[in-house]
């Protein structure tokens, strides 16, 4: 069985998930003694091609075409590569750019799509594990088809780092006709008053706080602890705190000594931004909240009861 994995890169660097795709791809290829092909599209493909020459990779295909991701180029190139390589499994990242081309490719190639897989195995067909209901349950998905497209969640497979002896081959592709979408540029979200990535102690607030007025309570806690206030996404979406306070995939990645999550469930996109904290503490009413899986200390309880007591402890 041949596996074709598509690397992810942005603004000059390969993203971590590219190295994880290699171990995920190798795992499937091993199941049948097949080959692993990796493709990298656009950007400095020569440099990327060298970097993707990793243990377990048989062939790296480099597709030169522009600097940055463009989904029309990606979709066209992946479809052309698919015809050339003839893989049983097409592996792509469940990154924001993956969300922008993988479903189109799967549909165009008439492949069943399993998105956001956290684990899988292959035994005549693909069996994948994916989460539902905000990580509250795990589901098993069995694919009864000869070929399948899969996107993998970042951080679930180990990254491959060792250099291999893959063949690196340039693949000729250029889109025909005008592209229907054009990337005009990039912008960093504004910095603002506080840099939460600098803080040693973060008190981070989530949707459990319910109302904007209640933010005062966690502000008071942050003051009492000498901590900086950060938050999960819904608090920023609601406009209660500015974007520079948001922790997570689309916000800031923080690595404080202490991260105290108050009323935060621990969705993957949030955890992506704070799992590197030394000590993680969670206060949450739901004993099954995924945040407890990565917490070092926890209180299963109502923040409106616990936080005032905690403030008192430090006054």
């Amino acid at each position: 069985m041949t596996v074709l994995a598509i690397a992810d890169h942005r603004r000059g660097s390969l993203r971590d998930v590219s190295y994880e795709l290699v171990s995920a791809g190798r795992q499937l290829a091993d199941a049948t003694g097949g080959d692993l092909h990796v493709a990298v599209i656009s950007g400095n493909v020569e440099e990327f091609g060298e970097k993707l020459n990793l243990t377990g990779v048989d062939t790296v295909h480099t597709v030169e075409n522009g600097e940055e991701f463009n989904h029309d180029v990606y979709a066209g190139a992946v479809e052309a590569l698919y015809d050339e390589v003839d893989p049983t499994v097409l592996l792509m990242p469940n990154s924001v750019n993956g969300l922008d081309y993988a479903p189109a490719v799967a549909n165009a190639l008439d492949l069943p799509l399993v998105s956001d897989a956290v684990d899988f195995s292959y035994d005549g067909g693909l069996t994948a594990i994916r989460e539902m209901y905000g990580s509250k349950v795990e589901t098993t998905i069995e694919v009864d088809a000869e070929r399948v497209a899969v996107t993998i969640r970042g951080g679930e497979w180990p990254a491959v780092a060792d250099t291999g002896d893959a063949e690196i081959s340039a693949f000729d592709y250029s889109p025909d006709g005008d592209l229907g979408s054009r990337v005009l540029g990039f912008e960093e979200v504004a910095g603002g008053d506080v840099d939460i990535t600098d803080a040693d102690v973060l008190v981070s607030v989530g949707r459990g706080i319910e109302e904007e007025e209640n933010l005062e309570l966690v502000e008071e806690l942050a003051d009492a602890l000498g901590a900086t206030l950060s938050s999960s996404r819904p608090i920023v979406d609601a406009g209660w705190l500015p974007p520079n306070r948001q922790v997570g995939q689309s916000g800031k990645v923080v690595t404080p000594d202490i991260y105290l999550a108050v009323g935060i469930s621990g969705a993957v996109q949030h955890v992506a931004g704070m799992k590197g904290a030394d000590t993680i503490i969670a206060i949450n009413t739901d004993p099954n909240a995924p945040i407890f899986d990565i917490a070092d200390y926890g209180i299963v309880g109502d923040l409106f009861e616990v936080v005032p007591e905690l403030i008192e402890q430090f006054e």
Partner: protein
Amino acid sequence: MMKILVTVKEVAEVEDDFEIDGLGIDEAYLEYDLNEWDDYAVEEAVQIAEAGDDVEVVSVTIGPERSEETIRMALAKGADRAIRVWDDAFESVDLLDVAAKTRLLAAVVEKEDPDLVLTGVQAADDGFGATGVSVADEVGFEWAAVVNELDLDADGGVANVRRELEGGVEELTEVDLPAVLTIQTGINEPRYASLRGIRQAQRKEIAPMSLDDLGFDASALDSPIALTGMSEPESESDATLFEGDAEETAAQLAEVLREKGVGAQ
């Protein structure tokens, strides 16, 4: 005249304590609501309609009769009419995969012929994060995924969007119309339905559509992807959980925090 089609899904939210019954969560522990991402998509469409003249907003859902309540919320917030796709054949389907949803929604897009389709980035329950872009490919529209700002230039035939990438970076992209955009939370501030809106919604049309109406038979729901198991993830937690009432747990946590030098001035 411009038409915007918004896909909306009623999603199940799970209570803290729940039980799994076969391949699903026991109904007793589920509450239903409009998918968070779709709420933002509806708001975006309604704001475009309010800013222009002669813009029609149509919402479409694939869902059982129960979901009409949720669809009415979209109507109460300003959508002009709604379509609900359902059929007895759906009752025996455990998981409606992306390809099946694509087939059905693409058929609706082709019937309605909108200039713009807005979907959510993902459904909060099954979370494929794939339906919008897949539908775009199926109907031959352009698209953009994870859009957190939209500036529509209908006369120029383009939409200028910001795509929210990882790590606080946004991509500025110009997309030809017609297009499917998958909408990210935070793009706007979804309104609460007004009493007047709720009253008006009662009189708005929710048109039922069967597989037959869309030109399909039950085989349109066939999928090579089967849900074969559901379980509560084994807790990987090695957290120390403090026991006791609020005062006791807070005191224990305070001790740990102090040991780590917090609050010591």
